[in-house]
C-alpha cells in the first residue's frame, strides 16, 4: 500500500513543483525584466478572459486528476480484504492494547507475519486516539463508543514505528510502539509462545458466564434472536430499517440493546454497559463471528431472516411473561 501512496506523492511533487517553478520563474523574470526604468511607463492591461479561462481550466483538470488518483488510493486503503486476519485494538490513555484472534495479547506492540493482510478492529476506552504506522502510510482515528477499522499488508520484515496521532492528553507523545513484522515461521513461533486461547473461545466462555445463551438459543425458541450465522447478514429492525450485523452493530447490541431493536422480539435484553470491558466485548464479537464462520463452513446456509414467524411470536409472547428485564 505504501508504494501507492508514495507514487501519488511523487506525482504531486512533480506537478506542484512544476506549477511553483512556473509561477516563481514568471514572477522573478517579470520583476527583473519590468523593473522600473526612468521614462518607461507601465502598460495598462485590463485582463483577458481567454487567459482567465485557460488558467482556470488547466489547473482544474490537473486537480481532478489528483482528486481521482487520491480517491482510488483512499478507497483501497479503506476497504479491507475479506479474508484479512483480524486483530482487536483497544486504545487507552496512554497505551495500545492489542488482542489477536488466537488470543495473544500485546501492549504497545503488534506482531504480524509478512505478506498477510491484517485488519485492525479498534476502539478506545476513553478519548480519541489514532493508530498511525508511518512506514505503511496508514492512519485511522480510534474512537470511544464505536469500532473503526484499518488494514495493511506488511511486505518487509522489520520493526516499524507505531504512533498515536490524535492528541489525547499528557502522555500523547509517549503512546508509541512497534509493529514487528516477522517471517511466517518466526511468527508462528511467537504465536505459540503462550496465549490464553483464541479470542473467540474466551468469548464463548463469557457468553455462557453472562447468561447470554439463555435467550440467544441456537434455535428459534429463544427470547432473543438466534446468533448463529448472523455476522455480516442483514437484520430487520423494529423501526423498519435494515442494518448489517457488523462489529459495530454487535457491539451496540451488547452495550445499548434498545437502540436498534430487532423486529419481532420483545425489548427485554438488558444492557451490559459497565458490566463488560472493551476486551470482553471484543471477545464476544469474535465469538459471534466465529459461529457465523462455522455455520458457513458447515454449508448449512439459512436464508431465514431474524424475524420469527407469527406462530413463534405468539409463542414467545406467552413464554416471555416472567418479567421484562429493562435496564
Amino acid at each position, binding site marked *: 500500500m505504501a508504494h501507492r501512496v508514495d507514487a501519488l506523492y511523487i506525482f504531486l511533487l512533480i506537478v*506542484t513543483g512544476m506549477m*511553483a517553478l512556473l509561477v516563481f520563474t514568471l514572477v522573478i523574470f517579470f520583476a527583473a525584466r519590468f523593473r*522600473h526604468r526612468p521614462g518607461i511607463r507601465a502598460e*495598462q492591461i485590463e*485582463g483577458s478572459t481567454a487567459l482567465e479561462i485557460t488558467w*482556470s481550466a488547466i*489547473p482544474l483538470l490537473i486537480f481532478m486528476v489528483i482528486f481521482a488518483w487520491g480517491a482510488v488510493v483512499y478507497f483501497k486503503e479503506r476497504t479491507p480484504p475479506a479474508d484479512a486476519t483480524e486483530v482487536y485494538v483497544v486504545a487507552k490513555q496512554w497505551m495500545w492494547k492489542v488482542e489477536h484472534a488466537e488470543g495473544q495479547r500485546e501492549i504497545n506492540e503488534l506482531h504480524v507475519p509478512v505478506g498477510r493482510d491484517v485488519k485492525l478492529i479498534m476502539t478506545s476506552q476513553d478519548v*480519541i486516539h489514532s493508530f498511525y504506522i508511518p512506514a505503511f502510510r496508514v492512519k485511522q482515528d480510534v*474512537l470511544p463508543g464505536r469500532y473503526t477499522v484499518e488494514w495493511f499488508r506488511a511486505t518487509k520484515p522489520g520493526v516499524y514505528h507505531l504512533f498515536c496521532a490524535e492528541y489525547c492528553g*499528557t502522555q500523547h507523545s509517549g503512546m508509541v510502539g512497534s509493529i514487528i513484522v516477522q517471517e511466517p515461521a518466526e511468527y508462528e513461533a511467537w504465536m505459540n509462545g503462550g496465549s490464553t486461547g483464541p479470542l473467540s473461545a474466551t468469548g464463548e466462555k463469557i457468553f455462557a458466564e453472562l447468561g447470554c445463551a439463555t435467550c440467544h438459543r441456537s434455535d428459534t425458541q429463544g427470547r432473543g434472536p438466534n446468533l448463529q450465522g448472523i455476522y455480516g447478514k442483514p437484520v430487520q429492525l423494529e423501526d423498519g430499517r435494515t442494518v448489517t450485523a457488523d462489529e459495530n452493530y454487535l457491539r451496540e447490541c451488547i452495550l445499548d440493546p434498545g437502540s436498534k431493536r430487532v423486529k419481532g422480539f420483545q425489548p427485554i435484553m438488558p444492557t451490559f454497559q459497565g458490566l463488560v470491558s472493551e476486551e470482553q466485548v471484543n471477545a464476544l464479537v469474535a465469538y459471534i463471528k466465529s459461529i457465523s464462520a462455522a455455520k458457513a463452513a458447515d454449508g448449512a446456509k439459512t436464508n431465514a431472516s431474524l424475524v420469527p414467524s407469527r406462530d413463534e411470536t405468539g409463542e414467545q409472547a406467552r413464554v416471555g411473561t416472567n418479567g421484562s428485564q429493562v435496564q
Partner: protein
Amino acid sequence: MANAIPQPTIPQAERENYLNKEYGVWSWLLTTDHKRIALLYLLSITFFFFIGGFFALLIRLELLTPAGDLVQADTYNKLFTMHGMVMIFFFLIPSIPAVLGNFLVPLMIGAKDLAFPRINLLSWYLYIIGGVIMLHCMLTGGVDTGWTFYAPFSTSFTNTKIVEAGIAIFIAGFSSILTGLNFVVTIHRMRAPGMTWSRLPLFIWAHYATSIIQLLGTPVVAVTILLVAAERALHLGIFDPKLGGDPLLFQHLFWFYSHPAVYIMILPSMGVVTEIIACFSRKRIFGYHFVAFSSIAIAVFGFLVWAHHMFVAGISVYSALVFSFLSYAVALPSAIKVFNWTATLYKGSIHYDAPMLYAFGFLGLFTIGGLTGLFLSALGINVHVTDTYFVVAHFHYIMVGGAVMGYLGGMHFWWPKISGRLYPEGWARLAALIVFIGFNLTFFPQFLLGYMGMPRRYYDYSHMPEFQVLNVLSTAGATILGVGYLLPMVYFLWSMRYGKPASDNPWNAAGLEWKTTSPPPTFNFDEEPVVTWEAYNYEELDAPHKEEVPVAG
C-alpha cells in the same frame, strides 16, 4: 514613481488630524473614530502576537532535543494549545480587518466613518474582555486540549480551564462578528457618490468576503463552545459517547467554523497584496472582476469543505470523496488570484520598496502553502500526513507566510497614512528579507518531518531521534524569524518620533485614502469625494505632465 518624497508645503505636524485632535487616555478609550480604534487594535494584537510568539519560542526550544527536557508534558501541551488559541483568535482573526480594515474601509470608499462607530468601539472592548479572560486563564493554569478542543477529551477528561478559555473565545468571537457586521453595512450603504461596486478597491472586496464568513461562521463555533461548556459544567452528554453523544458531531460543528476561519485569515491579506502589487507595478490589477469574484467564491466554497479535516476521523468513504472534491474546487479561486497577480507584473514598472518585497514574499510562500494544500486534499496522501508536521507546515505557510507577510506589507504600505511618518526603507527591506529567510528555514523542514511521520503535538520524540536534525533547523529558523518580527516593531516606533514626515501620497498610489492628508483628519475628508474614475487609475497618476503630488488642504 521613485522613492523621492516631494516635500509638503505645510508642515504636516501642525495640521489637525485624527492623532492630534484630542489628547488624553479617555479620548482614546472612548473614541468612536475608526482610525483610533484601528490603533487600539494595533496595540492589542501586537501584544497578543508576542505572547503567542513567546509560546512558539518555548515550543521550538523544547523540540531542539528529542527528550522532553525543557518543560513537562502537561506544560508543553498547554504551550501548543495556547499558542494556537492566542495566535488564531487574538492575533490572526482580528489582525488585518481590525487594524487595516478599520482604518481604511471608510477612507477607501469615501465615507466619514463606519456605519456603526459605537459598535466598532464595542468590538474592541469585547476583544479586550475576551483577551483579559484568556490571559487570566493562561496565568491560572491554562488549557491543554489543543486549540481544537476535541471531545470527549475536552468535555470529560481534562482538568484544565476549558470553560474559562471557552468564554474568552466566545466573547472575542462576538468582536469578530460585530466587525464583520459593520463592514458589510458600511460597504453597502456608505460608499461615496460615484463609488460603484466595480470601482471599489479589491481590498474592499476582500474585506467584504471576509465579513460574510465572520458573520455566518463564528456563531456556529460560539454555540459549539457553549455546548462544550454546558457539557462540562452540567454533564449534559451532547458529545460524550458514554452519555449517548457523538464525538464526531463536535468535530463537524467545530470545523464548520474553523475551516472558513482560515479564509478569514487569508482573504484580507490577499486584498492587501493586490493593492501593493498594483501600486508598485504602477498598473491596474490584471483581471479586476476575476479577482473580485474569486474572493466571493473563496468565501462561499470555504463553507463547503470543513470535513477535509476529518478524513481519518471515522467519516464515511463517500463523505470523504465529496469533501475532497470540493476542497479542490476551493483551491481554484486562490490559484486564479496568484495568476492574476503574476500577470499584473507583466509590462509593469516595478519598484522594490519594502511593501512590494513583502508582497513578493507572500506570492512565494502562499504559493507553496497553497500547493501543499493539494497534497492534503488528496485522500490517499491525507491519510499519511494528516496529524503530522506536514499539516503544521502547510498552515503556517499560509497563515504566517501568507497572512502575516501580507499584514506586514500592508502596515508598511499604509504606515505613512496612519502615522504621517515614513519608516526607514533600508531597515524595512532588511526585515523583509530576514523574515523570508527565517520563515522558510523554520517551516520547510517541517514538511519533511511530516512525511517522515513525525506526529503533531509531540513534546518528546526520543523514540525517533532521527527527527532531530530537521527540528534543529526549524528552531534555528524560528530565532531568525523572531528577529525579523522584532525589527519592524522597533523602527515603526522610532519613526513615530524621528521618521520623515510623509506627504499625502508618498507612493503616488491610487485610492481615495491617498487623496487626504497623512494622517487624515478625524472626518477623513474635508469634502465628500465624488468618484468619477475607475479603480487603479495608475495611467492618470503617472501621466507625464503631472508636477508634484498635490498636498491636500
